[in-house]
């Protein structure tokens, strides 16, 4: 059964939730039933999400200490989105996203040490210190960045899907972007071509409610149903509780199957929330403390998972504490690696400009 209601573009929308005409930020939770996880899956999801959370907290800390420069956009609060999607994906499926990319890299099994060392601008980072927080890539792990121009990755991700179709290799491009990027023109240029040519691409719209300081209700027409933005192109879309990793995985599985069946693109609007500011220098004055507090206390993806694990007796608090310890150790090791690694050799200034 479906965790969320599918909204085929050809049908009228079923007005899920929007009948309340409450446009305040909230995940699309409550009415949905997610596909249940096995015990192993719950534990797996929990650990993956916790790694992202702890990693990002550490990154924030290192930023405050001056080890990380420039822009640093944290993924805290949104962990369930990329975790659930990766749980549904196959080897060979690509991931491409914006500058809020640390979580995606960890979810693609990139090495936390290499990611953190890139944040600190060291030679041991994924881009040898030349990309930074927003620009990391791993062809080996099928992670295609890390892009700093809002919306650019949508066309690029559509191109990854084009390549999949050209090669007929059955892979799917999972193209992530925020609800802010959704208003860029090239998103619709991409929707048009993807639908026209039936490209295997899932547009994973991470609707975290705020494009920097602008609430989605101030930026997007019909902001309560962004999943529907592809409907004129015949692209099916659905709204997903992006705070529930099970709902995400279930929706991801449906979208992946659709793409692999040669049916073309699919839009998943993940209703999610970022707890931190847009970037480290954002005081987040555009929303109330209570709003953030409510999300943290009542919708946190990791806490939901933890409660399920404990309630079902899959693991007790002591075991979970051990997981936390293990993950903290991994993150601390990454931080240590990132702080002690060498800066790039000055000669690196002149390398990698051309092949």
């Amino acid at each position: 059964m479906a965790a969320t209601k599918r909204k085929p573009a050809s049908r009228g929308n079923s007005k899920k939730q929007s009948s309340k005409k409450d446009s305040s930020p909230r995940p699309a939770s409550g009415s949905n039933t997610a596909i249940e996880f096995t015990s192993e899956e719950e534990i797996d999801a929990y650990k993956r999400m916790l790694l992202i959370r702890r990693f990002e907290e550490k990154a924030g800390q290192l930023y405050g200490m001056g080890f990380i420069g420039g822009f640093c956009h944290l993924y805290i609060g949104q962990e369930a989105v990329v975790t659930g999607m990766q749980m549904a994906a196959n080897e060979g499926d690509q991931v491409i996203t914006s500058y809020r990319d640390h979580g995606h890299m960890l979810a693609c099994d990139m090495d936390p040490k290499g990611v953190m060392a890139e944040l600190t601008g060291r030679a041991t980072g994924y881009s040898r210190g030349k990309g930074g927080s927003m620009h990391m890539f791993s062809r080996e792990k099928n992670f295609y960045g890390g892009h700093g121009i809002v919306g650019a990755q949508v066309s690029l991700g559509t191109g990854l899907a084009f390549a999949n179709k050209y090669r007929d290799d059955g892979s799917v491009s999972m193209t992530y972007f925020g609800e802010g990027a959704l208003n860029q023109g090239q998103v619709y240029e991409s929707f048009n071509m993807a639908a026209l040519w039936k490209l295997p691409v899932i547009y994973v719209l991470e609707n975290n409610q705020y494009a920097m300081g602008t609430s989605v209700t101030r930026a997007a027409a019909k902001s309560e149903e962004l999943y529907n933005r592809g409907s004129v192109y015949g692209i099916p879309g659905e709204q997903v509780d992006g705070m529930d990793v099970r709902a995400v995985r279930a929706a991801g599985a449906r979208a992946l199957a659709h793409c692999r069946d040669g049916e073309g693109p699919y839009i998943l609007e993940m209703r999610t929330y970022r707890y931190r500011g847009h970037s480290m220098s954002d005081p987040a004055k555009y929303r109330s403390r209570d709003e953030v507090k409510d999300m943290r206390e009542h919708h946190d993806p990791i806490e939901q998972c933890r409660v399920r694990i404990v309630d079902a007796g899959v693991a007790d608090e002591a075991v979970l504490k051990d997981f936390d310890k293990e993950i903290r150790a991994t993150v601390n090791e990454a931080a240590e690696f990132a702080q002690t690694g060498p800066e790039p050799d000055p000669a690196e200034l002149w390398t990698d400009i051309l092949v």
Partner: protein
Amino acid sequence: MAVQILMPALSPTMEEGTLAKWLVKEGDSVTSGDIIAEIETDKATMEVEAVDEGVVGRILVAEGTENVPVNAPIAELLGDGEEASEAPAPVTAPDPAPAPAGETVEAPVTAPAYVSVPLEADLPEGTAMVEMTVRDALNAAMREEMRADADVFLIGEEVAEYQGAYKISQGMLEEFGPERVIDTPITEHGFTGLATGAALSGLKPIVEFMTFNFAMQAIDHIINSAAKTLYMSGGQLGCSIVFRGANGAAARVGAQHSQDYAPWYANVPGLKVVSPYSAADAKGLLKSAIRDPNPVIFLENEILYGQTFEVPDIEDWIVPIGKAKIERPGADVTLVAWSHAMTYALEATGQLTADGVDVELIDLRTIRPMDMETILTSVRKTGRIVIVEEGWPQCGVSAEIAARVTQQAFDYLDAPPATVAGKDVPMPYAANLEKLALPNTAEVIEAVKSVSYR
């Protein structure tokens, strides 16, 4: 009185065409809108419609006649009761409407232009030459590379079923099919991003822009996504892609369709920028560009598409990117140009050498990486340099070359470097103003004389 039907101009750059077929014969009645003939230009076969009503009198140009000049009478149309005249058919076109004269007084150019030929040094002994247009050379380059590498594909507006807006991709859909010759919607930003994404995953797209003016919509992907990713990824993620299309002024297409983007792209590390003049270079450089693992901006010129040059008739004719060509060795003055500006430079070289000035003419061919070694070696010999460019003067390629020559060969200079560039104005539409906005041969001759203190 009988109305003369004139050979129509079917594109801004058309000067002559072939009267392929008459669809009416003498004595037929026609009404306006009837198709009376088919005309072939170098780009396409077009139908000619009757404008007026009447009876076809004499047909003045037989079908199959080539090189019929625009505005030449091709038939007579008789009104009611008129008889076909017995006067002999005019054999030449009347003078075209006199273009309003510009303010500049052009020096008379009496000597023939110097003619570009492939460098013998680059060729195996005894290499045969074939005559080929730039258009056919570009087409051949793409076909050869697509036959050799299944990862290469062509994508752009009207490249497939329409056979190319400028017919560069003629016949390619038929040979390679719609999977590899891909018509896009009019969506430059989107399809450039899509092609760049495909390139990041390892394919080798050739992106055709109908003109580079439209690539401004897509320049974010060319620069931010294609040019910078290799560096930002610490060398992990290359982007083998060619962005090609018409660049610079054509003929009276106005300010939004006439810009020369060479300096824009030449400013960007991570890109290669190529701008050939001859068909031989167009073919050899495009093949190099397609094989290059980096993003290459390949700037063509609409006026050159239909021009014919000698191209070496060898299996795999390659011209390396980044190497200028010494078109004519000389001792007195270094003259540098590229793309369509070579037209003025070649004419000027013909005239100047006839006047006793021994010009060393260099076709730059690649703008980035710039072959400064060839230029500097020449300047150290001649002590004088003139650079010709069709684009704007400020922050232009000619200004860049002048600056570098001043920095790196100052002690060898006998005169300040001179530049002849397009005027610092948006391209006007009026024929006389457009002519004034572009460089011309007289200006080049004048500049060469000026640096020679003649």
